[in-house]
């Protein structure tokens, strides 16, 4: 392959990796997404980090795991691991408006389900009736929680922490208007189940309470903080969130980078880098010298003398002069 193509590709790869490091993810519910639908503010405020199903067993009891905006139903294996986590004392917070997590809720032995229908409130809302404001109560404290395209929870046995106003209704046909056949009235949107095994489960029928555009509205952040014990470390389960190709690349690269520089692998890697840099530097120097340095007419003479120290340098210089004048005889 031509040298300049290789150089261009290497340069482009370097720029690409730099861009990937600096440009945050735009995936919804991504912890480093700083746009309206990301969780970067929640990540900072609640000190949330990612976890995966395979890591759940090692989290311990002073942890809280958020399942936010799942893009699919959890698999049997995932349900099993999540159930074990809760039964052994874990704190699971489920945030979903589509009902993907209903199978998980059932497997935990809870009589609750997300209806999957859009909740609207024609009076108590923010900007649009699809962004209803609900009243929440924890102990003797009350909160105003702002929702974004939320659903509702049908349940028995849970403690209702937040419910919509008496004017709210389920917009079954997404018309934006309350029609006679559409259920209306006070509906539950946040429900807590204590003593699920040794753990507890908190269900939100909206996955957007903590996204950047909603977290600072009303009492959203304070409400969620009031539900998480101070000594708990918060995690977001990555497995069920829809991840874009860009994020996969970015995460893989950052993981690889962290693996290289935050582990003992860095020692051989640095050595390898030194060896490679040595030879690459040498080659680059040669290349650049040949490109930019003005060739001296006696440069070859120096090389020949270096190789054959016994040869007469002045004679060689004369030959070089003759070569330069294209073999013309001196006048």
């Amino acid at each position, binding site marked *: 392959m031509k040298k*300049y*193509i290789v150089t*261009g*590709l290497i*340069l*482009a790869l370097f*720029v*690409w990796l730099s861009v*990937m490091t600096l440009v945050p993810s*735009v995936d*919804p519910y991504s912890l480093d997404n700083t746009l*309206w*639908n990301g969780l970067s503010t929640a990540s900072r405020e609640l000190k949330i980090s990612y976890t995966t199903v395979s890591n759940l067993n090692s989290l311990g009891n002073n942890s809280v795991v958020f399942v936010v*905006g799942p893009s699919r139903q959890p698999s049997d294996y995932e349900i099993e691991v999540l159930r074990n986590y809760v039964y052994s004392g874990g704190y699971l917070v489920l945030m979903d408006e589509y009902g993907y997590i209903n199978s998980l809720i059932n497997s935990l032995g809870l009589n609750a389900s997300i209806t999957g229908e859009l909740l609207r409130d*024609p*009076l*108590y*809302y*923010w*900007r*649009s*009736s*699809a*962004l209803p*404001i609900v009243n929440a109560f924890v102990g003797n404290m009350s909160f105003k929680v702002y929702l*974004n*395209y939320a659903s509702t929870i049908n349940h028995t046995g849970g403690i209702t922490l937040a419910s919509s106003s008496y004017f709210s209704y389920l917009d079954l046909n997404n018309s934006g208007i*309350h029609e006679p056949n559409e259920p209306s009235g006070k509906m539950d949107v946040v429900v807590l189940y204590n003593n699920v095994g040794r753990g507890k489960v908190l269900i939100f029928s909206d*996955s957007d309470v903590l*996204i950047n*555009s909603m977290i600072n*509205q009303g009492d959203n952040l304070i409400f969620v903080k009031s539900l998480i014990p101070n000594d708990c470390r918060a995690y977001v389960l990555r497995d069920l969130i*829809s991840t*874009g*190709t*860009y994020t996969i*690349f970015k995460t893989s690269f950052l993981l690889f980078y962290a693996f290289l520089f*935050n*582990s*003992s*692998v*860095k*020692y*051989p890697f640095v*050595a*390898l880098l*030194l*060896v490679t840099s*040595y030879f690459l530097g040498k080659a680059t120097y040669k290349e650049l010298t040949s490109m930019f340095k003005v060739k001296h007419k006696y440069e070859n003479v120096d090389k020949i003398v*270096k190789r054959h*120290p*016994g040869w007469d340098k*002045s*004679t060689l210089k*004369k*030959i070089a002069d*003759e070569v330069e004048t294209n073999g013309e*005889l*001196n*006048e």
Partner: protein
Amino acid sequence: MSRLRASFFSLVLILLVTISLAYNNFPRSIDPSQVKEEGPSPIELLSLYASVGKFASSLDLKSAINVSSALGKIYIPQNLLYVFQRFNSLLNETLSQMNTTNYYVNLASSNISISDFKGVEKYIYNASKSLALTKIKYDELYSISSEFSQSTGIYSSKIYGVLNEIKDEINKLEVSIDNLQSKIEGIKPRIMSTFLSTSVKPLNVTYGEEITITGSLFYENNGTLPFREVIVHIGNTTYLTKTNFFGSYILRYKVVDYISRLQIYAEYIPRGSDAGMFSYAKSSTIYINVEFITPNVNITVYPSKVKPMDNLSILVKTIPYLKLDVLFFNSTIDGYSNASGLFTITNLAVPCNISEGYYNVSVKTFPNGIVGPSGNSSKIVVYKLNPEVRIDFPSVALSGLPSQLKVFTNVTSLFIISSEDVNITYVNEGLNITSGAVVPINYLGEYVSFSVKLSPREPWVKSWQNTVRVKVINTPALAILVILSLILVTNYVKTLRISSVAKKERITPTMPKVATSLEELPYPARLFYELVNSIKALLGIEINPSDTIREYLSKLRSALPEKLFNPLSQILLKYEKAIYGGSEYGKKFMDEVVEDFKEFIKKLKGAKE
């Protein structure tokens, strides 16, 4: 340029791919900043206003105000906000004024039932004033209702309907006030004012002494009211007595209250046939001074700074033979002060499970006749000692190789050393713990955190906990580093050696072997020198050892005629090509040169002769 262009296009291509990858997800929520603001639903709004009207029409004004307050929490777009807020504010103010009016009307009604006409007149006045304000607010509210109706989309007839319900209630309140006024005007001429006098003797008493409360109840023109119930208030207690035939009453009371200033007054409330005939009466309030002894109580706890299980002593000093309770860490010790007024408790152990902090030790004395209750408290500090702990962990550990972890302390303790990073836990009880730990050879982390916990067996020593980080170097990784470094160093040393040898050679060059006579030279060279010698003999021009062929030719140019110089220069340049031209000019070419040399030498010889 073409290289630069190619690099630039590659870069742009990869950036475009990156950006397209970044934007391929479809969000499932809505960005609130992009949402067009919606106004509230007129139907739901109207239902709220209708409830306000409904509550107002049944004079349940508190509920009406609650609903009205809830209206303030409804989301209203900015362009409608002022009209909406103004309407609701006026509605709230109207309802609040109605509520105040209603409150005064109710008070006036209840005061009529006890014949307190002064009170009734006062409340009717307040109610009338409040009603006037209500009407003003209502008129303002009514005046903006049309604009409100247009802004919110609620039919104006519906809004007027709600307002009319409120207006009806305002009218009803006005009628109530008028009725009360008429009633009091109708009753007042028939009611006789009553007066109640009270006196207490003596005004200064000692605890246990008796006081006599006397007074009389009479009405206008000094007419007495015999056999009427009088309520006497002494401190926080009420006593019922009756007037005698002369309208006087007497109540004897033994003062057994430990209150230094005791309040006493009497009331008469007309009941039965008296109601509607006599007015309510209340006497003036009299205060009597009660003397009793409040003993001084001093409590001393020593030492005042203790550890769990330490013994301490408590000394209470008060008046002799007084019953007292000492409260010490949730337990109560009771007793009596001795003849000297002292009460001593010694060797009292501080509970072993007590936490560090400040605690109160209090004493409470019980009243005894003229001696009233008293008490005092003293603060003590409970503290614990810090254990002396020495940790001897290696600063760096190599994976796969054993390291020793040692912890020492000065008090028998339960040691727990654990690490989640490498999943190990060591437990021991005693004065120290020594254990060998091996970080797995494949451990790639930079550090291993060890949690060290000490639970001293002695209750007066604090628990201790710390986290120690040990740097870990992966042994295989280190080995690879060493090997690669060796390769690098070896390569560099080799390069250095070659360059030093070359230098040395340049300083003391090994001269190549030089031919000493013409016979030792190859045949073409011999012919060349023969030619050179012939020219030297003919023209006296010779070739120096350092001259190149071309330099030599330059010397000859001026000496030889052009006819001779041109063929000679062709022959010599051909010879130069044959020598330095490389493989391109082979033996055949050299043979031609040899023939040319021979011919030219022959020509020179001919010319010489």
